[in-house]
């Protein structure tokens, strides 16, 4: 075996590069145009959900070799069902092994705080350079003044509805209040085109509907301190009573058994006239315009309109959008590499490509992305997502989005309060049940 001698110049060059990488991180790597000296065969494993926009996962897979080359380590993505993310995180933390980086939805970093690496040194510079993070991330990714996750994106929601069907019953614009929406829904259901809403045990659509609906009527799970359960209020009972009637008169009652994909399929099949969803209904209908058509045989996406928010209730108009972030696990042996990867991922050139593929389904975690040229190119129904992330509240509102709030969400307490009521439980009893469950979580 030939052993290559190293001369003084080569030594200085290589050690200089290593020093640059050590002190400047990913910027150093790029400046030095050389991969850092991670041990040969080092692998970085990232677990994310299977995106509702398949092209977004394709883009990340495409970027993986580029990241590997830039970082000098093998970067691999694994995409799993979103409902399996929490079990996966639990198993990884308890066994002390698994992926180096895991995608965190909602305010999960609060729940797993003890097992996550402080990534303030990554998150803060990104936020600073990109116009600041949206407010929701302060409560979802920041625990005790430490960033335990790097905010990645927000998934906005809007009510997707069939313009022509609304027009057929004389409705030219989306109803402004819940009462108006109920009247519209009644007429649509009478024509066999009900409103569709998931109210089962699934991570996305049921809570994004149930929480803002509760807030719209002045209800809340806790008070502003986040310590006292406040669910048993006039506003909550009103909201439950309203939903009982709304469900029967205007909705597809099968929604009780829906998961997060059912309303997409039902909408594309022309079974429902409106539903609260991300942009995926529109985007998939457009990308598969030859397959997804309306009753006249025309591409369905042309008949889809988006209302930015659900209608207004007596207490206002609220939204709950899904904040998404990446956390580095404490057990990871590649924490430095993981941080370098997250810096790489959030560079404009890399993040921008992923952002554009999403066409508004996932929007940026920082305000800078509101000004991206992509917004000038996307269709009008998708424009509503541009500033959507500014509006969202978090679990536990008006209190802090604490780990207790996450626990209440994970147990589907608010969703099930409504699900019980629409199945026939008296409104007061459903609220009382939720109060008992919430007290066990918050005050137990």
């Amino acid at each position: 075996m030939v052993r290559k001698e190293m001369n003084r110049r080569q030594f200085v060059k290589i050690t200089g590069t290593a020093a640059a990488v050590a002190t400047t991180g990913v910027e150093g790597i790029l400046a030095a145009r050389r991969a850092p000296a991670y041990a040969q065969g080092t692998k970085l494993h990232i677990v994310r959900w299977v995106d509702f926009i398949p092209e977004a996962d394709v883009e990340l897979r495409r970027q993986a070799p580029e990241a590997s080359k830039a970082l000098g380590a093998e970067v691999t993505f694994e995409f799993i069902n979103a409902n399996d993310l929490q079990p996966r995180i639990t198993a990884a933390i308890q066994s002390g092994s698994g992926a180096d980086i895991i995608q965190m939805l909602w305010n999960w970093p609060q729940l797993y705080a003890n097992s996550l690496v402080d990534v303030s040194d990554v998150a803060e510079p990104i936020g600073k350079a990109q116009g600041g993070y949206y407010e929701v991330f302060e409560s979802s990714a920041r625990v005790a003044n430490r960033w335990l996750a790097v905010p990645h994106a927000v998934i906005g929601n809007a009510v997707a509805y069939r313009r022509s069907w609304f027009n057929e019953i004389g409705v030219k614009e989306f109803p402004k209040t819940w009462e108006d929406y109920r009247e519209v829904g009644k007429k649509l259901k009478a024509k066999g085109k009900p409103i569709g809403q998931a109210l089962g045990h699934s991570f996305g659509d049921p809570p994004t509907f149930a929480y803002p609906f509760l807030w719209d009527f002045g209800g809340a799970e806790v008070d502003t301190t986040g310590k006292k359960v406040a669910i048993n209020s006039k506003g909550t009972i009103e909201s439950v009573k309203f939903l009982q009637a709304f469900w029967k008169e205007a909705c597809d009652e099968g929604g009780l058994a829906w998961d997060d994909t059912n309303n997409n399929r039902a909408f594309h099949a022309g079974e429902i006239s409106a539903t609260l969803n991300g942009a995926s209904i529109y985007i998939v209908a457009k990308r598969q315009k030859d397959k997804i058509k309306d009753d006249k045989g025309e591409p369905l996406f042309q008949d889809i309109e988006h209302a930015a928010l659900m209608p207004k209730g007596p207490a206002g108009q609220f939204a709950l959008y899904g904040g998404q972030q990446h956390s580095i696990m404490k057990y990871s042996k590649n924490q430095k590499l993981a941080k370098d990867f997250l810096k790489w991922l959030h560079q404009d050139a890399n993040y921008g490509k992923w952002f554009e593929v999403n066409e508004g389904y996932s929007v940026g975690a920082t305000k800078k992305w509101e000004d991206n040229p992509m917004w000038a190119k996307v269709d009008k129904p998708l424009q509503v997502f541009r500033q959507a992330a500014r509006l969202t509240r978090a679990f536990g509102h008006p209190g802090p989005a604490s780990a207790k709030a996450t626990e209440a969400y994970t147990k589907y307490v608010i969703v099930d309060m409504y699900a019980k009521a629409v199945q026939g439980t008296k409104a007061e009893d459903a609220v009382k049940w939720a109060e008992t469950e919430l007290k066990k979580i918050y005050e137990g």
Partner: protein
Amino acid sequence: MKNPIAGGAGRAAPVEVALPHSRASQRRTLTGLLENERFLALVLLTPTVLILGMFIAYPFGMGVWFALSSISVGNPGHFVGLKNFVKAWNDSIFRIAFWNTSVYTFWATIFKLVLGMWLALLLNRHFRGKRIVRASMLLPFIVPTVLSTFAWRWMFDPTFSVLNWTLYKTGFIVTKLPFLSNGDWALWCAIVVNTWRGMPFFAITLLAGLQTINTDLHEAASLDGANGWKRFWYVTWPLLKPVTVVVVVFSIIQTFSDFQLIYVLTGGGPANSTHLLATYAYQIGVAAGLLGEGAAISLCMLPVLFVVVWIQLRYLRRLEGA
């Protein structure tokens, strides 16, 4: 010229003999040890005990410890005594899950037994294509549960159910049946799927039992004028009882601790109306991260199963004694 053969009979060279002699002596010692029944039992049982210890006793011990502690994801917790069990007992969802688990196990086992017995009796007859029918009957049991449950979920889909479509098109219904969107319906749907999946296990086991029954007994009963029902009740059933008890014990254990089917079919919804103890324990322990509480819920299955199995095995011993 005759070559002397070293180590030949009667001419053993000291050096050449020394090593084989030692090996032979060791072999004799080992054989002697293995002749000892206690030592042999120890040798044979050790691997099994180690495997059981590692994969059954250790996780079980950990489960018990978890149930008695406040452990949650990422937090080791501390000893809290029976607090988790008390909390579970005062939890309305736990009570629903406990009730559901009992109803689910009771009816699914009854249906599997009756239909499995019926199928076994049919398959015990001679007809053309018997082998193909027997083999295909096992399909629900062979197909992975998650896969077959997904197929059932599509059949029960609130919007696209092929069952609803068929019933509607044939004029039997005017509105969709709420297979999975009504709590009561959803639990019965789960019982149907469990019966469909578990029935072949009953059928094939009972069929094996049926084939051990001497046909002379049936012929003698026929000659004495016994009809089909009487032959079954007085000849077949008493002889099948031991096999039936065993298969019912297995089924109760599997059904009571069922997880996959509900997880895929309903996720415990709507409004917790289909949660079983296993799915609820999973939701609390794994999804919500409260490992101690989840373990306590899970451990609540143990005394129930223990009592049921103990009664049945006692009954089996009495049958064998008789």
